């Protein structure tokens, strides 16, 4: 160890994505043997910053100094070798293979047998066991990863980070799916690592946890560094204030929609999945924009996907316009004139290799079948073109593959797709995610117009200004349950955060 004051310094880091400034002159300095919390709203740039550090992204500007030496990583392997690890739960390497094989993936110990080099399973087992024993983790190196609990997998990944002799370990929302006991165990491990001189960068929304475990806290907002504070100076109010602290300007179009009579009524909706949403009830009116807020993992997407028939429900009822509706698949949902814009545009939204035109028409082909059973392409093409023109989709031509469009324009095409089905209820799951600011405003205008025309709109958003700026009412969820329904005009970000973290 050198005698530097900081083990890691990230200086003036900038990162641009097409149309978005994700990181703007952000600095982060981490002391050796400390837990440094990184906080901010969804979209504040925490993950992007960490990905720049870990070699997943390359920063456009700024420098990274690790242990006194400037570094830059072209890939994660280089970062790992230099002593930086990142614990990400969704990045399970190979679930069907054993713990130790995952542990040493990319750096298997080998033994020379004359000309051949074979993997040294004995050494692999012994080394894995040694690391686990040292950290007092009870995991068998031979178990298949797929059979481990979430918490065990996380422990395994922390142990893996230790085995790389990491100086800095990044933990991105490590407790999001842990029980209380598991969190306590995780904190024991973190404290042990800290006492051995390892630095932890700890990303979390959970303020209580931050106050408990961290030594220093850096707060980010809108891709900018807001400040770094010693743990002692901080209180819950202060953190929320710094995280939110922004005034709303003209980021949203004026809304002239007038909510009418109750159109959709959901009662006691409960998922078939144990840890998902429970006992959710709400009503949405005609011409109303009904926002759903909450943190990642609040089961909001799961809820609306169930309303659309993509996921199962154990109990609960829906009624639409006073009549009970039974929806077990999207085909039925469409019959009830419900449309769903999913959260994951790439995986469940676009058909990348198909044209903009075909992407627009796909949900509404039934409408264009002639008596001869052939499609009326002329009418379909015209409607599709009108629709993408109305939404001002920027595309070289209607025949362009949708994968060549920007995120915002892809999103507009999917909106156009659903508008062609003439829905009464439009469910939008993070409609502006990954879209640049200008396109956001256009999407907002579209939503406002639809509400004005009497459509019932449900909008999930993790961006609080968006929720407050667009919604007539806001339902907040935490860990699968509804924690409150607020009036959109009076709701504050503080109220929403408080409700969104009620059970944490």
């Amino acid at each position, binding site marked *: 160890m050198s005698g530097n004051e900081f083990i890691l310094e990230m200086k003036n880091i900038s990162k641009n994505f097409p149309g978005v400034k994700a990181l703007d002159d952000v600095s982060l300095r981490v002391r050796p043997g400390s837990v440094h919390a990184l906080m901010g709203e969804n979209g504040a740039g925490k993950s992007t910053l960490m990905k720049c550090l870990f070699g997943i992204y390359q920063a456009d500007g700024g420098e990274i100094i690790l242990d006194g030496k400037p570094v830059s990583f072209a890939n994660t392997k280089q970062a790992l070798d230099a002593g930086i690890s990142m614990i990400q739960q969704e990045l399970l390497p190979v679930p069907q293979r054993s713990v130790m094989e995952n542990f040493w993936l990319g750096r298997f110990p080998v033994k020379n047998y004359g000309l051949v080099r074979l993997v040294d399973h004995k050494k692999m087992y012994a080394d894995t066991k040694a690391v686990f024993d040292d950290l007092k983790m009870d995991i068998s190196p031979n178990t298949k990863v797929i059979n481990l609990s979430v918490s065990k997998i996380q422990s395994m990944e922390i142990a893996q980070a230790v085995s790389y002799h990491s100086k800095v370990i990044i933990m991105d929302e490590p407790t999001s799916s842990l029980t209380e006991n598991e969190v306590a165990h995780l904190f024991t491990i973190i404290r042990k690592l800290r006492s051995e001189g390892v630095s932890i960068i700890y990303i979390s929304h959970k303020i209580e946890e931050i106050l408990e475990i961290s030594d220093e806290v850096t707060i980010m907002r809108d891709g900018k560094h807001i400040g770094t504070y010693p743990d002692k100076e901080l209180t819950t109010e202060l953190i929320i204030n710094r995280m939110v602290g922004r005034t709303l300007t003209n980021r949203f179009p004026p809304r002239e929609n007038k909510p009418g009579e109750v159109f959709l009524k959901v009662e006691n909706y409960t998922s078939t999945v144990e840890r998902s949403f429970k006992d959710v009830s709400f009503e949405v009116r005609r011409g109303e924009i009904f926002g759903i807020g909450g943190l990642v993992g609040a089961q909001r997407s799961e809820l609306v996907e169930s309303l*659309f028939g*993509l996921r199962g429900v154990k109990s609960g009822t829906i009624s639409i316009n006073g009549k009970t509706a039974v929806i077990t698949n*999207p*085909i039925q*949902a*469409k019959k009830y004139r419900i449309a*769903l814009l*999913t959260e994951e545009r790439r*995986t*469940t*939204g*676009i*058909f*990348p*290799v*198909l*044209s903009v*035109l*075909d992407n627009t*028409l*796909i*949900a509404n*082909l*039934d409408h264009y*079948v002639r008596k001869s*059973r*052939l*499609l009326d*392409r002329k009418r379909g093409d015209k409607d599709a073109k009108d629709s993408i023109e109305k939404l001002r989709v920027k595309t070289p*031509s*209607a*025949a362009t593959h949708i994968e060549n469009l920007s995120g915002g324009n892809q999103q507009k095409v999917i909106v156009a*797709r659903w508008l062609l089905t003439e829905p009464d209820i439009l469910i939008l799951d993070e409609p502006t995610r990954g879209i640049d600011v200008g396109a956001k405003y256009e999407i907002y205008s579209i939503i406002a117009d639809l509400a004005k025309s009497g459509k019932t709109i449900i909008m999930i958003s993790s961006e609080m200004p968006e929720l407050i700026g667009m919604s007539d009412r806001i339902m907040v969820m935490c860990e699968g349950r509804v924690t409150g329904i607020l009036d959109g005009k009076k709701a504050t970000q503080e109220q929403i955060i408080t409700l969104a973290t009620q059970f944490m």
Partner: protein
Amino acid sequence: MKNTESPGLSERFNARSIREFSSKNAIVLVLIGLVVFIGFVQSSFLSLDNLVNILRISSVRLIIALGCGGILITAGTDLSAGRTVGLAAVIVASLVQRPDYASKIFPSLPYLPLFLPILAGVAAGLIVGIINGFVVAFLKVPPFIATLGTMVIAQGASSLYVDRPPRGAQPIGGLRGDFTDLGTGSLGFNDTWAIPTIILIAFVIFFLYWVMLNKTRLGKNIYAIGGNLNAAVVSGVNVKKNLITVYVLGGILYGLAGVLLAARSGGATNNYGQMYELDAIAAAVIGGVSTNGGIGTAGGILTGVLIFEVLNNGLVVLGVSAYWQMVVKGIIIVSAVALDIRKYTKKR
């Protein structure tokens, strides 16, 4: 999309548009290049007789490749194609043997109107298609495995069908003239102005398949399912129904191809259709069908089949040994696809 603006002459012939044209039509250019090259080295290749012969052989192959192609576009595959062709061939052949033929498989079979045996052959394909579709769509068995199973079953079934004591597993021959006319005869005003029936049938099938892919809901849904299965589900596409339909259509086409194959060759054995599925997949892929799904056209499949058969015929005409033919064909398959895939892998 039609380009409504008419570009000026200079624009039409600049380097970029030529490059674009050749990248878009690489496969057609390969076909033309092959024909010109083989014809240049051995002019007998370009004789009308030889070219018509290539088209005749291509007819059966095209029908199989279309059936397979639609399935490939859904990101599926169909290994049972070849053996289903064989099964249909033996079934139809056994029902159209001449009454006076000595070793008939059904000695007491009455003279059947032609449509009945044909229907039986097509029905055999239909049944295999239904099984494939059901296993893939409802039991969710990966298409490769599901159709591997039916491939083996179809081979067993056709052998069982042929192998009847005391006659044993002999080739089925002595087919009726009205039946073999389907494969060898022509339709037209007179002898000089006539088109071989089999080519006409293939053309009709090609046209229908083109209509299906481009003009119907089924076609659009096939592309959507292959392009992004999850998005198709979210969009309310009835994935199961569409998948079954495309496998059933495939089966029907293999059945028809089997009928035409028996008609063209005037008989059938239980080895008919062996490896045809791989040729069909190769031809479709050469023609630009993506095995990742979502991409492919009827025209491309036609081009792929023609390349394949021009090559088959050309190598023989050029006097290349059978073993070298295989090596060359393998190289052509891989290089044609490597060339074609440039269209899609530019960025990333």
